[in-house]
């Protein structure tokens, strides 16, 4: 108690400046999370308020962990994130290298490149739901007009086509974050090492592999860290495009949580799942943050 008081007195100014921020996060994030942690151990259903006190121990978690639908959704989420993040990174890198090479109209190109960043996920979802629609979608119309396909392709109905369409939407939305940050890295890059390597007879691939890429790594990890903060935005896209359907074929972890909580009204079980999704998000962020720190140190040793 005494030590606490001394700590507060010695650091009064920064603590006072931080107090409002800490306070609102306590009220809106930490407190609800503690509450939902508790709810995860009860049989709470929205339609029966008294069930909040119906403590059932680990049964929700046991149910969730033995539920085939949950595992299917979890694996689909992990696969989705792996595919999306890797492709976004690769495409973003290509895009940044291309824009970096051009000299005429570079500013305009950069602005166009940021175009998808302005779209909210809900709009991206709507946009591709509209384009991939099997009767009126522009993609199907184009394929039929060009005579490439006789029948309408059910982009949002078939299991893998729907997965691909959603991943496409996600990649369209987020590639520019990678491109922008990697481009910033390219601009910040010192010229001398590259020229020295050229003089020493390195090929352009060698220059890229051993000089450019290591220099860009921290920027790639910043982009990854920023992205992993909001991977769950994919919920919005899926909710508009397929709603997790048809018949749960495109269910991701987040849509499954929403369905369990609000449609089936099983709050307790949904909260148990929500904790799994929170751990997943924290793991992704922590993983890339660690990588970022390591890459930064590596760069400092240059």
């Amino acid at each position, binding site marked *: 108690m005494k030590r606490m008081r001394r700590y507060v007195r010695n650091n009064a100014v920064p603590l006072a400046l931080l107090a409002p921020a800490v306070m609102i996060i306590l009220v809106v994030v930490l407190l609800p999370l503690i509450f939902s942690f508790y709810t995860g151990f009860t049989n709470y259903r929205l339609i029966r308020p008294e069930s909040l006190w119906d403590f059932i121990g680990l049964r929700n978690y046991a149910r969730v962990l033995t539920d085939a639908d949950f595992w299917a959704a979890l694996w689909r989420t992990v696969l989705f994130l792996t595919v999306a993040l890797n492709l976004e990174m690769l495409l973003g890198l290509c895009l940044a290298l291309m824009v970096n090479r051009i000299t005429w109209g570079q500013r305009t190109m950069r602005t166009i490149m940021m175009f998808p960043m302005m779209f909210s996920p809900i709009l991206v979802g*709507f946009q591709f739901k509209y384009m991939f629609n099997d009767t009126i979608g522009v993609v199907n119309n184009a394929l039929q007009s060009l005579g490439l396909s006789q029948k309408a392709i059910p982009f949002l109905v078939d299991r893998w086509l729907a997965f691909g369409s959603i991943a496409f939407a996600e990649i369209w939305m987020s590639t520019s974050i990678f491109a922008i940050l990697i481009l910033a890295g390219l601009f910040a890059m010192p010229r001398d090492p590259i020229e020295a390597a050229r003089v020493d007879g390195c090929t352009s691939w060698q220059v890229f592999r051993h000089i450019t890429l290591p220099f860009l790594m921290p920027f790639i990890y910043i982009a990854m860290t920023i992205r992993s903060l909001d991977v769950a935005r994919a919920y919005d896209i899926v909710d508009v495009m397929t709603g997790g359907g048809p018949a749960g074929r495109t269910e991701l972890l987040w849509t499954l949580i929403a369905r369990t909580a609000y449609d089936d009204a099983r709050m307790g079980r949904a909260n148990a799942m929500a904790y799994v999704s929170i751990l997943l998000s924290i793991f992704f962020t922590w993983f890339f943050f660690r990588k970022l720190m390591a890459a930064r140190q590596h760069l400092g040793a240059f």
Partner: protein
Amino acid sequence: MSRGQRDFLIWVATFLVMLAICIPGLWVVLSAFRPNGEILTKPAVWIPRDLSFDNFRAIFGLGDNVVGIPVGSYFWNSAVISVTSTVVAVTIGMSGGYAFARYRFPGKSSAFLWLMLSRTVPGIALSLPLFILWSWTGLIDTKLGVIIVYTAINVPFTIWLTEGFFRQVPRDLSEAAQIDGCTPWQAFWKVEFPLAKSGIASAAIFAFLTSWNEYALASQLTRSTDSKTLPVGLMDFTAQFTIDWAGMSAMAVIIIIPALILTFLVQKHLIAGLTFGGVKG
């Protein structure tokens, strides 16, 4: 192949890629001006014959065929919620960012990490307890309830951005001002704030866009026209048996315009803020 030719080829390739990036968005914008009849026609009509503002008139309830969705109220709700939560979040976040940039105190780096981790909680996971707690306290389906939540989710990122910008302002400047007789409060507003202003502006725009575009939380915490925001309202169109594609496209255009303007305004600071916050720590 000469250098000039190769540069030209790269330019053309880049241009084509950019075009491909823009097409989905432009297609929606074009559809917003086309009547539903033309969108639904088979075989597809490729060259629009009939462009008009009818869809916009319809969703705002002005034209002959009125859409029963109160887009006007949704727009108002979105504006009030986004602006208020941005102003509050930037005020709170700026004060926190300043504390991190200027003071040393024990537990600083772990405090920073915890604040950032609070941002990783998926919206839908956070919506479950908030839905229950807000129902109990009567905050559900009110603008105030959403404003409080959006303020909290915007604070960590605002702290991250403003901290980076305040660190760029040399400490000596404020000290010099204080030697010349300013109070620390005056020194902050007269010296440090103006220098970090552009960074703070981009933090504000970031916060605004997050609130403007948020869906997962708002879709559960809002129910009626009193508090529903535009992204939630967009789903009203699909709740019906037939989807009003033209109306949805028009609404999409209304959602995108403010975001478009704001992003153009801050694109430079946006990149600077994101990168030096992370790299030169």
